[in-house]
């Protein structure tokens, strides 16, 4: 028999292998990394995740007195670096990947944080939650200093050192 005809029994044996996705479930292994999910309760708005995210899918945006951690899934490469780095373990990697939408804004997920105002100059400088967290961990931080923005804090400390001169 001509050898190349042997492909026919192979084909008969394996049958149809194409999946009728999306009507059939896609195959996803247990290791699959999909889109991420930020837990608004755990997140403190520290911004560590926005600094590691390679395609800049995560960003911190200031809008008046709120700080927004915005996740734009359209840019996300599903690497999970943000989940690795988040100090609060607020980011979970899901198995979601069917994320198409006709509406661009649906691809954004926002986590809002209240911003703390500097008691002296009134500038917003850090999310309230993050400040509270720092205060709960750093006991030596005096209240009046903690509520100052970095700039005013520097001036204040300088003043104390130089005895007000």
């Amino acid at each position, binding site marked *: 028999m001509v050898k190349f005809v042997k*492909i026919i029994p192979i084909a008969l044996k394996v049958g149809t292998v194409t999946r009728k996705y999306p009507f059939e479930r896609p195959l996803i292994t247990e*290791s699959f990394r999909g889109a991420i999910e930020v837990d608004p309760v755990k997140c403190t708005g520290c911004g560590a995740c926005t600094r590691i995210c390679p395609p800049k899918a995560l960003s911190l945006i200031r809008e008046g007195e709120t700080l927004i951690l915005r996740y734009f899934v359209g840019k996300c*490469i599903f690497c999970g670096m943000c989940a690795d780095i988040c100090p609060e373990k607020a980011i979970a990697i899901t198995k979601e990947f069917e994320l198409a939408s006709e509406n661009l804004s649906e691809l954004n997920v926002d986590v809002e944080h209240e911003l703390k105002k500097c008691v002296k100059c009134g500038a917003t400088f850090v999310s309230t939650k993050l400040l509270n967290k720092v205060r709960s961990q750093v006991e030596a931080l005096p209240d009046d200093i903690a509520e100052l923005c970095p700039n005013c804090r520097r001036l204040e400390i300088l003043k104390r050192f130089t005895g007000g001169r």
Partner: protein
Amino acid sequence: MFSQTSYLYDNSNILDKVIKNVGGLGAEVLERKPDFTRVFVSRDKLVDVIKELMKLENVYLRTMTASDEREVNGFFKLYYVFGVDSLHHTIIVEIPLSENSPSAPTLIDIVKAVDWYEKEAHDLMGIDFEGRKLHKFVLPDDWPDKVYPLRKEYGIEDLKKLYKPVFEYAKKVEAEAAVIIPIGPYHPALHEPEYFELYVRGERVVDARYVGFMVHRGIEKLGENMKYDQVPFLAERICGICGFVHSTSYCQAIENALKIDVPERAHFIRSIILEIERIHSHLLWLGVALHLLGYDTGFMHAWRIREQVMVLAELLTGSRKTYGINIVGGVRRDIDENKIRKCLNVLDNVEKEFKTFIDVALSVPQVKSRLRDTGLLPKGEAQKLSLVGPTARGSGVPRDVRKDYPYAAYKHVSFDVIVYSEGDNMARTLVRVDEVFESIDIVRQLLDKIPKGPIAVENWDAEPYKIGIGSVEAPRGEVIHFLITGRYSPYRWRVRAPTYQNLPAVPIMLRDSELADAPITIASIDPCFSCTDRALVIEINRGSIKEVPLFVISNKFRFGV
């Protein structure tokens, strides 16, 4: 046994002698290690020094980099990286160029492979090469003159402002709706824009010309503005089929520059994934090749078998393709017992199925006759052009970075470098076929020997202006990343993919061949075929010019159609 040692001895003697001669010519040896030499040469001595180096046997140009170091030491610099395969030795030749009018003598007559590197250095860094008249090469024709994007004075934002051709023009002529199509830094999956001009007489190709760089993505510049740990994810997107080789090379380059001690287990995991990548990449190529030969049944089966490997890759890394597990200092995902077991099962099955299938596919008479004696590439040319990967190995050059410049865990496994000497399309095909089996065997050995321990270095510090090289044997050939470190990001990052090295060989393979064989010949170097691929067929006798997609040429000659 005796003869082998004396052979090694002789050779390293030759190397010592050459390096000594080079010193006599005025070159300064900056660093000398068993596998690595760095020499510093002034520009007027360059030609003599390179001539001396080329006397070494099996020497080839691995890559060349131009770097703008004016803010560091006041000049531009060129780095020529040579490899001496049989001695496992890398030689870097560095020359400083004046900051005002950087120019160097051309090496094109001594090292044929330097052609594109010089053109690119001229285009992106503004280096002149005496004795060569260079035109726009990588940059588009409408790019402003005298703007060299890789120079440090241009930030990415400045460059973006410079780019406004079509859309601005559309507004000027008041075209109704202008659409901006975003391109890159993504890879267009299977197909890549390339362009061949084939000069034919009747059905025979007389000559061929290649035009590339339609989608230069500026990745090197982009990487110089990203943090060290972000770049691997960008690097992985350089190629849509073999991305892991790039992130590995990048990490190796940094680890090498900063002397970071990567844990053994991480080396093993990297090697395992690299080999899995080779398996699926070769299976993909075989499918595409069979498709181009009109044997679509074969294409389907090759890809069906490949699919199991893709699923396996996802199981091991978390993603089918852009694996995202490389970081500087190691890897991010471990492999446990359960995964090892599944991996072995898949490999057994793939091996069995592939064996039966390839036996059948390569016995199809039309496939056989189309591959045999077509697209000939003589060994001499392969050596002259410094070719890499299956393209070189199909022409009898046993070049394989895994053996020649061992990295990751390759020193712990035994494997053969597959070499065929015929230099035709069949030889290149058989190299890949045999390598699939070889790779399966390598993964088995690695899984068997994988040591326990951590998978990444926790902390490391970047010291600026250190030089590092990372190179990996990708499915298509050697990938090499040259890197100069900066404080938070690479200061200069130079990527050289195998296709860059191998493409200049295609016109040689095409010359004086049948037009019908052109598609498989072009594909035989595995260049990632193109969705926008157009072949301009120029009929010399009649003076007619036709623009036809390559697959139409191949269809025309399909059997049974």
